[in-house]
C-alpha cells in the first residue's frame, strides 16, 4: 500500500494540469467572464530527486549515494478578479515515492511503525482568501500569508507564521512554499502622503493545531537531526496545541507601520503577539502552566510571545550598496532549562521515584533580541566570469542575543540536546548570484558560518530557464558540522543548528513545469 496515496495525489495532479493548461497559451489559463471579471488558473508540477552525499552514523547501512527524496508536487492557484472583489484559492498536492533509504529508516523505527510516507504525501489548501479595496483601505479575509521583516535564512520579526521544515529543512529557495498560512483578517491602509502604509491583522484562532509554529521532522525521517534519523521522537514527546500559554484557539494579532524616512530609507515598526516559532517542551518531569503533558517525556508546544520589531533599508550611493537592518525584541522568551546538565527531557517517574528533583528541569524566560545587518552589492563580474550583467552579492550577519542570560540559568539551546544557550548566536551568511545567456543560466552560491556554535554550510546551485514552462535547478547542500552528536548516547555540549544536519549533505535536482 506504501505510496498509494502518493499515486492518487499525482493522478489528481495530472487531471488538474490538463484542465489548467487546456485553454491557455504560454502562461496561465485566463478566462474573461464579462463585466470586467477574469478567472485565471496557474501553477506548476514539480519533481525533486535528492541523493545523500554522506554515510550517516545513526543508520546501520551506508547511506551515501542513496535516493533520499523522490517527490512530486502540484500547485494550482486560481484567481477570480472583479472590479470590487478578488478571490484567491491556492492548493498544493505532494506525493512521494518511498525510496529504499526511506524504507530502511521506516524499518529502523521512523514514524513508529506507521506509514512514514503519510508524513510526506499531503493535500493542502495553501491559501484561500477574499480581498476588497475601499479607496485606501484593502481588507483581506481568509487563509493567507503575512510577511514582515527583512531577514533571509533566519527569522527575526517574520514571525506571523511558522514554517514547515520537515520535508526540505530550510533549503527550499522559495520560502513562501515553506511558510504555513493562517486564517487571518488582514487590513492595509495606504498613507501615500508620507509614502507609508499601516497594516493590522487578527488571527481569530480558527486554525488547526498543526498550523502554528515551526514543524520539524520529529518522526525520524530524512531531516531528523543527527543522531535521531530512524528514531521516532514523537513516541516520547507529544505535541500540545492547546497549552494554556500556547493555545491555537487564542487570538493573536499584530500591527506594522511601514514608511519612508530621509527620502528613501524604507523602514517599518511592528508589534506582534504570536506563537514562539520553535517549540519548547512542557516537561513531564515538571509540568508547566498547569498542564500535564501527554507525552512520556513531555509535549512540544508553542507559547505565545510578544515581539517588538523595527527594520530599515536604504541605498548608499557612496559605496554602491544597499544596507539593511532588522531588530526584533522578544521580552520573556521561554526556554527549557536543565540544572542537571542533561537534555531537559526526563520521564515523570524519575521525579516520583525521587531520582531527580522536579525543579531540575522546566521552563524559564529570558529576553531575546534578534538583530541583523546586511549589505547587498552589485558587483561587475562581466570581465572576470563573463556574466550577462552585474552580479548580486550579499552578506548578512544575524544574531540571537540574550542580554540577561546567566550561565546559572542553564537554558538549553534545544530541548533534547545538552548544549546550553549562549548569550549570542552569530551567523554570517553570504549569497552570490550570477546570470548567463540572457538570464537563462543562473549559477548561485550561498554559504553560512555559525560563528557561535560552530559549523558551516555551502550551497552551490545552478538554475536553468527553458522557455516559458520548464525550470530546472541543481544544487548541492553541503554541511560542515562541528560538535555534532554522533549517537544517542554520545554527549555533546556544542550542538548548533548546523550539527543537526551533520552527514546530511544532499545533491538535489528539481524540475518544474509551470503553467
Amino acid at each position: 500500500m506504501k505510496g498509494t496515496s502518493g499515486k492518487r495525489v499525482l493522478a489528481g495532479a495530472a487531471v488538474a494540469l490538463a484542465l489548467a493548461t487546456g485553454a491557455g497559451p504560454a502562461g496561465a489559463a485566463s478566462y474573461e467572464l464579462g463585466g470586467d471579471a477574469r478567472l485565471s488558473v496557474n501553477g506548476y508540477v514539480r519533481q525533486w530527486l535528492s541523493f545523500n552525499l554522506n554515510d550517516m552514523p545513526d543508520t546501520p547501512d551506508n547511506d551515501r549515494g542513496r535516493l533520499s527524496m523522490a517527490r512530486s508536487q502540484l500547485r494550482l492557484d486560481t484567481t477570480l478578479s472583479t472590479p470590487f472583489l478578488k478571490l484567491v484559492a491556492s492548493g498544493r498536492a505532494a506525493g512521494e515515492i518511498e525510496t529504499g533509504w526511506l524504507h530502511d529508516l521506516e524499518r529502523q523505527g521512523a514514524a513508529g511503525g506507521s506509514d512514514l510516507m503519510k508524513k510526506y504525501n499531503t493535500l493542502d489548501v495553501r491559501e484561500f482568501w477574499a480581498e476588497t479595496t475601499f479607496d485606501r483601505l484593502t481588507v483581506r479575509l481568509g487563509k493567507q500569508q503575512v510577511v514582515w521583516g527583512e531577514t533571509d535564512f533566519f527569522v527575526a520579526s517574520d514571525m506571523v507564521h511558522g514554517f514547515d521544515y520537515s520535508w526540505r529543512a530550510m533549503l527550499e529557495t522559495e520560502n513562501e512554499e515553506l511558510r504555513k498560512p493562517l486564517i487571518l483578517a488582514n487590513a492595509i491602509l495606504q498613507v501615500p502622503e508620507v509614502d507609508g502604509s499601516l497594516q493590522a491583522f487578527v488571527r481569530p484562532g480558527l486554525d488547526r493545531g498543526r498550523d502554528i509554529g515551526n514543524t520539524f521532522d520529529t518522526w525520524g525521517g530524512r531531516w531528523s537531526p543527527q543522531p535521531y534519523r530512524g528514531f521516532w521522537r514523537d513516541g516520547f514527546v507529544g505535541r500540545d496545541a492547546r497549552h494554556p500559554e500556547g493555545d491555537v484557539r487564542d487570538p493573536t494579532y499584530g500591527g506594522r507601520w511601514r514608511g519612508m524616512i530621509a527620502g528613501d530609507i524604507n523602514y517599518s515598526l511592528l508589534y506582534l503577539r504570536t506563537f514562539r516559532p520553535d517549540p519548547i517542551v512542557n516537561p513531564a518531569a515538571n509540568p508547566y502552566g498547569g498542564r500535564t503533558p501527554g507525552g512520556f517525556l513531555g509535549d512540544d508546544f508553542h507559547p505565545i510571545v510578544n515581539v517588538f520589531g523595527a527594520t530599515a533599508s536604504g541605498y548608499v550611493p557612496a559605496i554602491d550598496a544597499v544596507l539593511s537592518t532588522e531588530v526584533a525584541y522578544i521580552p520573556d522568551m521561554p526556554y527549557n532549562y536543565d540544572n542537571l546538565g542533561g537534555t531537559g527531557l526526563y520521564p515523570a517517574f524519575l521525579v516520583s521515584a525521587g531520582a531527580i528533583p522536579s525543579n531540575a528541569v522546566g521552563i524559564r524566560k529570558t529576553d531575546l533580541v534578534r538583530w541583523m545587518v546586511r549589505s547587498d552589492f552589485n558587483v561587475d563580474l562581466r570581465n572576470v566570469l563573463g556574466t550577462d550583467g552585474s552580479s548580486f552579492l550579499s552578506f548578512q550577519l544575524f544574531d540571537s542575543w540574550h542580554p540577561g542570560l546567566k550561565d546559572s540559568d542553564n537554558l538549553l539551546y534545544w530541548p533534547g540536546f545538552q548544549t546550553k544557550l549562549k548569550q549570542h548566536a552569530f551567523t554570517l551568511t553570504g549569497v552570490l548570484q550570477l546570470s548567463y545567456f540572457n538570464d537563462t543560466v543562473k549559477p548561485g552560491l550561498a554559504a553560512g558560518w555559525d560563528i557561535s556554535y560552530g559549523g558551516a554550510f555551502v550551497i552551490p546551485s545552478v538554475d536553468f530557464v527553458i522557455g516559458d514552462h520548464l525550470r530546472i535547478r541543481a544544487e548541492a547542500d553541503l554541511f560542515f558540522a562541528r560538535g555534532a552528536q554522533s549517537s544517542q548516547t554520545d554527549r555533546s555540549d556544542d550542538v548548533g543548528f548546523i550539527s543537526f544536519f551533520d552527514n546530511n549533505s544532499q545533491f538535489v535536482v528539481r524540475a518544474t513545469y509551470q503553467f
Partner: protein
Amino acid sequence: MRQLAKLCAAAALAGAAAAGAARAAELPPGTVIDARTLDARMKDTFQGKTIASLLPDKLAWQVREKGLTITLKASQPWTVDRRYQEWTEKNRAGGVKIADGKGLENWQAGVPFPAIDAADPQAGTKAVWNLLVGQPVGCYWSQPRYTFVTFDGTGGIEREMLWRFSRINMVGRYCDPQGKLTLGDGSVRSKEILVALEPFDMRGTGMLSAQFMNGDVARSWAYVRSVRRVRTISGSSWMDPVGGGTDMVNDDVDTFNAHPSWYKGLKYLGKRWVLAPANTDAVLWRPDAGSKKDMYPALDLTKAPSWYPAVAYEPREVHVVETTPPPEHPYGKKILYIDAQYPLPRFTEIYDKRGDFWKWGTWISKNERDMEGNPVVGTYAGGMYDFKRNHGTLFLSTPQPIYNDPKATENELSVGVLEAIGGG
C-alpha cells in the same frame, strides 16, 4: 546561337534600362522593400527623398541580411495636446538652460529645447533632455498588461512574459487635473512601477523606481514574490538587463533611461530623415487569442527570425545623438535616433567596447487620445535585437493603454502599493 546571345544582351540592356528608370521613380505608399528589391530601390524616392538617404546603414543591413521588410506609408504629423504645444512654443525663446550639466533651469513643461542648433556644444545633451522630459505622452501612462516576447533567431518564440506597467511624470505635468505642473519638490523626474504577471515563477515580482532630475542614481525597490518581501535594490542596476531574459538593459527603456550626466559623452550628429514605424494601426498583440498565430497577427512565425512585426514605415525627421556610456556600462557606444517633430524614441544602434555592431532597437509609436480626449503620442511597441547572440525581444503594449487617468495620482506608485500588487 549568336542570335540567342544577341537576344539575351538586348534583354539585359532592356532590364538595365528599366532598372535605371525605376531608380529614378517616386515610390507610391504601399511599396514593399525587402532583401530582393532593396538594391533596386535605393535610388528611388519616397516623398522626395531617396530610399538610400532614409535608411540608416544598419537598418538597410537588416533588410538585406535579416529578413526585415519595410512597407512604405505617407508621413503623418502628430497631433498633440494644445497645452503641451503652448509650453513647447514658450520654450522656443531659449529660456530653458541645463543647470551645471545636471537638472534644468526655467523649465516647467513641454519640450525644453524645441530648437536645437547643431553648433551648440550642448546640442546632444539637449536632445536627450527632450527625450527624458519632453515626450508628448502626458502625466500618467499605464499598461495594465503588456508583453515581452523573446526570440531565438533561428527557433522562433522562446518566452512570453506578461507585465503590468505604470509611469507617473512628476515634472512637466501640463495635463495635471489640478493644474500642478510639479508633484513633490521637483527633484523626482518620474516614478515607475513594473510587476510581472506571468509566467508563474516571475508572477508578482515587481519593481518600483524613482528617477531624479539632478543626477542622483535612481532609487529602486523590488518585491520578491517567492519570499513575499520588499527589498531595496542597488541604484547601479540601471545598466543591468531588464528581467526575464530580455535583450535590453534598463538603460535601453525609451532608448535612453539614464541621467545625461552619467554618460561620458552625448555628441550631436545632426538631423536626418529615416523610415520609421510611427502612427501604426496594426494590431500587434491579442493577449487572449488562443493560438500564437492569432496572438501575434503581425508576425510571420513561420520564417526566422520572426521578430519583425509587419508595420508600415514612414519618413520621420530625427535628431541623431552618439552617446558614450561610462566604462562600467556593457555598451561601448549607443546612437540614438530621436523624433524631431516631438521627442520620442525611434531607433537605437548599439556597439560593443571593441566598436563592433551589437544591437538594434526599433520603437513603434502611436498617436492616441488620453482619458479626457486629448491627443497624446506614446510608444506602442518595439523590439531590441541582439545580433551577436542572434536573439531578440519584442515588447508589445496592451491594445488599450491608459493615458492621463485623472484619478491616478502619485499615490498609485509607492512601496506599499508595490507590496500590495505583488502579494495579490
